[in-house]
C-alpha cells in the first residue's frame, strides 16, 4: 500500500537524518503483523544509530588552549624551579591526573633527543618508594621532556648545611632506605652514576627520595656517555676509565653517609685531577678519626662501601643495607613479618661464601626449591628476555592462532628457567610492531635478549625458525630451524627453550631440562582445539569465551590426560563466572574440578598450579592449599608475572602485605608496560595504607596505559583513604567515563558523598542501589554495606555485608585489609564476618 510504503520510508529517512520518531505511534499505525515487525526492526536500527552517534560524541574534548598558558605536551607550565647544564625544571600541572608534576625540559640538539627520550624511558622502569617516580619521557615542539613526581622538601645537602651532621643512627636509617633505592635501580638494569647528597631529597613528611638521574645510564659494558658524576663522590676506578657499576654506586652512597655524619669527604681535592691524584696516592681520611664517637659497627659498615678496590666493597646494595641494619639492630623498613622464603633470600643475597649458601639450601625441605636455588647459585644474575610474536609464514590468516600458540608456549616454557625473566606478552604488544627493534626492547623493557622467529605449518609437518638476538648490539647470537612432523608443541617449544636457555643462562640442571621437554598431548586434533581456544580467550570477548569453552571441552574429551587443556578450561570457566555468563552453581564445581585435574596431570606446569591456586583461593576458600599451589608455581617459574601477580593478590587477602608488595614489584618488572601490573603495585600500597605511594603507582600505570580505567578508580580509593573525598568523587567519575557505569562505582560515589557531607546526593545514589538489590538485579551488596559503614549505621552495614557473603563471598576476600571497613573492625560482628569468610582476624 502506497501510504504504508511512504510511512515506512519516512521512518527510514528519519533514522538516516538522525531525527527522533514516535515509535509507539508508528507501531500502532502499522497495517499488518508483518509491518509491525518491520517497524520494530526499524526502531532497533534507530537505537543502533543513536549508539554510534553517542559513542563518537563521547570523545574527550581537549582543553581549549589558553593563549597565555605555556604548554608542553599535555602539561601546563606553572613555575620555573631551577636550571642546570642539562636543562630547566618546571612545576607543571597535568590536567588529566589533576595534579602537579615536575617537568625537566632538556636543552640539547636534535640528534641527542632520541637518546634522551630513551633515557627517560629507562628511568620510568624503576618503581620504588625511595626512587623518584618518573611518569614518562617524550618530545614535543622539538624539546625533550621528562616528567616525574613533584617533591616538596629540601635536599640532604641543604639539611646538613643547615642543621649540621646527622647522628649515626639517623644516617644508618637513611642509608638503609637509599640502599633499597639503589637496589631497585640496579634491578632495572641501570646504574645511577650520580649519587650525592644534592641528589637526595627529604620530602615534607619524612620520605627520602633518590633523584636526578641526569647522569644515569644503562648497565652495558663499554658504553661511554661522556657525562660523569661529581668528583668527590666518584669511585676511584672511574677516574681510571673503568665503567660505572653497581659497585661505583655503592661507593658513592658510602661517601654520602660519610659526608652526612661528618660534613666532610673521605678523599678531597680542589679539582677533579686533584681528587684523582689523591686516590692514586692513597690519601684518604678515616671516618673514625673525624668522629671518634661513632659506633664501630656503623663506621665499619660505611668503610666497606668506600673500599678502594671495587671487589672488596659490598656485592649488592642489599648487603650494605644488612650491614647498616646490623649496626643498630634496625629492621630495614620493609622487614616486618617476612616469610621464611624471603628471609632466606635476604640472607642469600648478602652472603658471599659457598658454605653459607649451602647452609641455607639445606634448611629448605622441598627438593624443587633447592633446585631453583642451585640454578641461581651457578648463574646468579637474572637475565631479561623478550619474546617477539613469531611470524606466520603460511599465507593463511586463519592459521594465525598456530603462530600465536608457538609464541605463547615458548614464552611460558622460558619462564621455567630460573635465571631468566621473560617479559610478558602484554608489554611486548604495548610496543608498536614497527618499533620493536632490539634497542627499543632494551630501553623500554630492560631486555638483554630478544627472541624472534617464524612458523610454517604444512599438512603434517611444522617448521619453526628461532633466533636469539643480543639487545644491546643487535647481534645474532643463535639461530636454528626445527622441522618436525606435527607433534606436541609443548615438547618442541621446550626443546627450543632449552637451547635458548643454556645459551643465555648457562648450564641448565637436568631437572629443569626434563621439565621443559615434557609433553602434553599426542593428539594433534586436541592440540589444535586447545590452540584455537587460547587464541579466542585473549580477545576477552563474551561470545568468544563461550566458543573457547566448547573447544577446550572437546580437547579434553579427545585426550583425557591433557593437563594444559584442563588448566585453560578451568581458566575459561572462571571467566564465564566473572562475566556472569553462567551461574555459580553450574560452573563452580566444574572450575574447581578442571583445575584439580590439571595440576594432578601436569604438576610441573606453572599454569596448572596457578589456576589451581586461584580456584582454591577464590572459590574453595582453601587458603593453605592455595598457598601451596602458588608456591609450587613460583618454584617452577620464579619471575613469571602470571604467577607473581595472582600470588601477590592472594597474599593481600591474607594480610601479608610486605610479601605481597615484593611479589607485585617483581611482577611489574616482568610486565612494565602493563597498566594492570603497575596498578597492582599501587593496590598493595593502598592496602598498606600508604595512600601517596598508591596514587603514585596508579599514575604511573596511566602513564603507561592512558585509558586503563581502573587506575582512576584506584586513585579515587586512595584519595578517599586520605580524606580527600571531593577529589575522590572526581576520580570515580573519571573511571566511569572510561569503563562505563557500574554498581561498585556508584557505591563508592555514595560512600564519598556521605563522607564529604553531600547528604542528598548520597541518599539518591544509595536509593538507586537499594532498588536494584530489592528487585534482585545485579548490584554491589558489599558496596551498600560500605556506604552504611561510612554513615555510621553499623547494623545495616553488617546486614548488607553478610548479604553480600550470601550472594558471592569472592567480593569480600579482602576484608582483612580493606580500609573502607576500618570503622567496623572493633565490633564483634566483624570477627564473625571474618569467620564466615574463614579468615583469621
Amino acid at each position, binding site marked *: 500500500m502506497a501510504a504504508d510504503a511512504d510511512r515506512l*520510508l519516512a521512518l*527510514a*529517512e528519519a*533514522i*538516516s*537524518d538522525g531525527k527522533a520518531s514516535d515509535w509507539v505511534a508508528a507501531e500502532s499505525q502499522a497495517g499488518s503483523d508483518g509491518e509491525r515487525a*518491520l517497524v520494530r*526492526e*526499524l526502531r*532497533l*536500527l534507530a*537505537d*543502533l*544509530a*543513536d*549508539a*554510534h*552517534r553517542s*559513542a*563518537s560524541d563521547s*570523545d574527550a574534548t581537549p582543553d581549549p588552549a589558553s593563549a597565555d598558558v605555556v604548554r608542553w605536551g599535555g602539561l601546563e607550565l606553572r613555575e620555573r624551579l631551577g636550571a642546570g647544564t642539562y636543562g630547566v625544571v618546571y612545576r607543571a600541572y597535568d590536567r588529566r591526573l589533576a595534579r602537579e608534576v615536575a617537568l625537566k625540559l632538556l636543552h640539547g640538539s636534535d640528534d641527542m633527543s632520541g637518546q634522551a627520550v630513551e633515557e627517560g624511558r629507562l628511568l620510568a622502569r624503576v618503581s620504588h618508594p625511595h626512587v623518584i617516580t618518573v611518569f614518562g619521557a617524550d618530545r614535543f615542539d622539538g624539546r625533550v621532556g621528562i616528567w616525574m613526581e613533584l617533591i616538596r622538601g629540601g635536599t640532604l645537602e641543604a639539611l646538613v648545611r643547615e642543621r649540621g651532621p646527622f647522628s649515626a643512627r639517623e644516617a644508618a636509617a637513611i642509608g638503609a632506605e637509599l640502599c633499597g633505592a639503589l637496589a631497585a635501580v640496579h634491578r632495572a638494569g641501570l646504574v645511577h652514576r650520580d649519587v650525592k647528597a644534592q641528589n637526595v631529597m627529604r620530602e615534607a613528611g619524612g620520605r627520602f627520595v633518590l633523584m636526578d638521574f641526569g647522569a644515569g645510564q644503562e648497565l652495558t659494558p663499554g658504553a661511554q656517555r661522556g657525562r660523569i658524576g661529581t668528583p668527590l663522590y666518584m669511585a676511584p676506578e672511574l677516574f681510571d676509565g673503568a665503567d660505572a657499576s653497581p659497585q661505583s654506586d655503592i661507593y658513592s652512597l658510602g661517601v654520602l653517609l660519610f659526608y652526612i655524619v661528618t660534613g666532610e669527604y673521605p678523599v678531597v681535592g680542589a679539582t677533579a685531577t686533584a681528587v684523582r691524584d689523591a686516590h692514586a696516592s692513597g690519601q684518604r681520611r678515616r671516618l673514625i678519626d673525624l668522629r671518634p664517637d661513632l659506633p664501630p659497627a656503623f663506621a665499619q659498615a660505611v668503610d666497606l662501601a668506600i673500599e678502594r678496590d671495587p671487589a672488596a666493597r659490598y656485592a649488592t646494595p642489599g648487603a650494605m643495607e644488612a650491614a647498616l641494619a646490623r649496626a643498630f639492630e634496625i629492621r630495614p623498613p620493609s622487614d616486618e613479618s617476612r616469610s621464611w622464603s624471603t628471609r632466606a633470600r635476604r640472607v642469600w643475597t648478602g652472603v658471599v661464601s659457598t658454605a653459607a649458601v649451602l647452609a641455607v639450601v639445606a634448611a629448605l625441605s622441598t627438593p624443587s626449591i633447592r633446585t631453583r636455588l642451585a640454578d641461581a647459585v651457578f648463574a646468579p644474575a637474572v637475565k631479561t628476555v623478550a619474546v617477539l*610474536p613469531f611470524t606466520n609464514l603460511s599465507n593463511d590468516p586463519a592459521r594465525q592462532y598456530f603462530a*600465536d600458540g608457538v609464541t605463547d608456549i615458548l614464552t611460558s616454557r622460558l619462564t621455567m628457567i630460573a635465571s631468566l625473566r621473560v617479559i610478558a*606478552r*602484554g608489554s*611486548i*604488544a*604495548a610496543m*608498536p610492531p614497527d618499533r620493536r627493534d632490539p634497542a627499543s626492547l632494551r630501553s623500554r623493557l630492560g631486555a638483554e635478549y630478544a627472541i624472534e622467529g617464524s612458523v610454517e605449518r604444512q599438512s603434517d609437518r611444522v617448521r619453526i625458525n628461532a633466533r636469539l638476538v643480543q639487545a644491546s648490539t643487535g647481534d645474532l647470537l643463535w639461530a636454528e630451524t626445527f622441522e618436525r612432523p606435527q607433534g606436541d608443541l609443548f615438547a618442541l617449544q621446550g626443546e627450543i627453550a632449552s637451547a635458548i636457555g643454556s645459551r643465555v643462562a648457562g648450564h641448565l640442571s637436568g631437572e629443569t631440562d626434563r621439565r621443559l621437554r615434557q609433553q602434553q598431548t599426542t593428539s594433534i586434533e586436541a592440540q589444535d582445539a586447545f590452540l584455537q581456544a587460547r*587464541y579466542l580467550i*585473549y*580477545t*576477552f*570477548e*563474551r*561470545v*568468544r*569465551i563461550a566458543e573457547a569453552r566448547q573447544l577446550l571441552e572437546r580437547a579434553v574429551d579427545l585426550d583425557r590426560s591433557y593437563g594444559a587443556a584442563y588448566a585453560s578450561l578451568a581458566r575459561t570457566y572462571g571467566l564465564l563466572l*566473572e*562475566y556472569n555468563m553462567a551461574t555459580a552453581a553450574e560452573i563452580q564445581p566444574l572450575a574447581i574440578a578442571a583445575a584439580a585435574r590439571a595440576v594432578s596431570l601436569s604438576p610441573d606446569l606453572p599454569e596448572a598450579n596457578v589456576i589451581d591456586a586461584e580456584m582454591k583461593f577464590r572459590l574453595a576458600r582453601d587458603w593453605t592449599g592455595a598457598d601451596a599451589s602458588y608456591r609450587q608455581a613460583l618454584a617452577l617459574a620464579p619471575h613469571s608475572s602470571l604467577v607473581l601477580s595472582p600470588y601477590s*593478590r592472594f597474599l593481600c587477602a591474607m594480610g601479608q602485605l610486605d610479601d605481597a608488595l615484593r611479589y607485585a614489584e617483581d611482577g611489574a618488572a616482568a610486565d612494565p608496560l*602493563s597498566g*594492570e601490573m603497575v596498578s597492582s603495585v599501587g*593496590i598493595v600500597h*593502598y592496602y598498606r595504607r600508604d595512600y601517596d605511594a598508591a596514587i603514585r603507582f596508579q599514575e604511573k600505570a596511566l602513564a603507561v596505559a592512558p*585509558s*586503563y*580505567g*581502573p*587506575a582512576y*578508580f584506584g586513585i579515587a580509593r586512595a584519595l578517599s583513604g586520605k580524606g580527600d573525598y571531593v577529589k575522590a568523587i572526581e576520580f570515580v567519575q573519571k*573511571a566511569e567515563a572510561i*569503563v*562505563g557505569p*557500574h554498581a*561498585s562505582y556508584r557505591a563508592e560515589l555514595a560512600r564519598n558523598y556521605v563522607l564529604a557531607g553531600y547528604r542528598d546526593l548520597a541518599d539518591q545514589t544509595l536509593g538507586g542501589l537499594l532498588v536494584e538489590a530489592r528487585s534482585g538485579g*545485579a548490584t554491589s551488596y558489599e558496596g551498600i554495606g560500605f556506604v552504611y559503614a561510612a554513615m555510621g549505621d553499623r547494623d545495616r552495614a553488617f546486614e548488607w555485608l553478610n548479604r553480600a557473603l550470601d550472594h*558471592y563471598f*569472592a567480593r569480600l576476600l*579482602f576484608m582483612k585489609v580493606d580500609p573502607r571497613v576500618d570503622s567496623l573492625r572493633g565490633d564483634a560482628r566483624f570477627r564473625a564476618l571474618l569467620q564466615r569468610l574463614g579468615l583469621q582476624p
Partner: protein
Amino acid sequence: MSVESSVDLLERVRLGDKDALDVLLRRYVPALRRWARGRLPRWARDLADTEDVVQDAVIRSLRNLSTFEHRHDGALQAYLREAVLNRVRDECRRVGRRPGIDNLEEHFVSDGTSPLEAAIGARAVERYEAALQRLKPQEREGIVARIEMGYSYAEIAVMMGRPSADAARVAVSRALLRLAEELRNGG
C-alpha cells in the same frame, strides 16, 4: 571545485602521489577512528585512539591494494574498515589485557562489550551484522557510511558516485528499509 573520488585518488596513490595519499587519509582516518571506538570494548580505547594503529592500518591497506579490485568507493571503505578492525583486534589479542572495573578486587563486572553492544545488546548486534551481509554491497556501504561512520550526505554522494546529496539520502533510506526487511525475515 570538484572533489575527486576515492577511486581516482587511489590511482594517483599507486603512482606515488603523496598528496593524494594525504587526501585519502584525511577522508577516511578520522571517521575510521571514531567508528573503531564504537566497535571495540571501552578498555581497548587506547589502542584505537593511538593515531598510529588506525592510520597505520589504513596506509598498509592502501599499499596492499595491488590485488584489490573494487568498483566503487564503498567497497574501498569496507576494505579499510575490515583492515582497521582486524588490526585493532589483533592488538587486543596480543595484549591479552583483561578488562575490569576495579583492579582492587577483580570482580570483573565489565566485560568485552563494545559501547554498541552495551546499548542494544550483543544479540542485536549479531543480527544486524548478519543482515547487513545479506544486502547488496552498495546498500551496505551506504548504511555503514551514514549510520556507523557519520559521513555527511554530500560526502557519501562523492564516495558512492551519486549525483547529489539528496540522491545519497534517498539511497541510504531505501537501504535502511531493506535492512529492516532482512532483519525481520532473517530472524
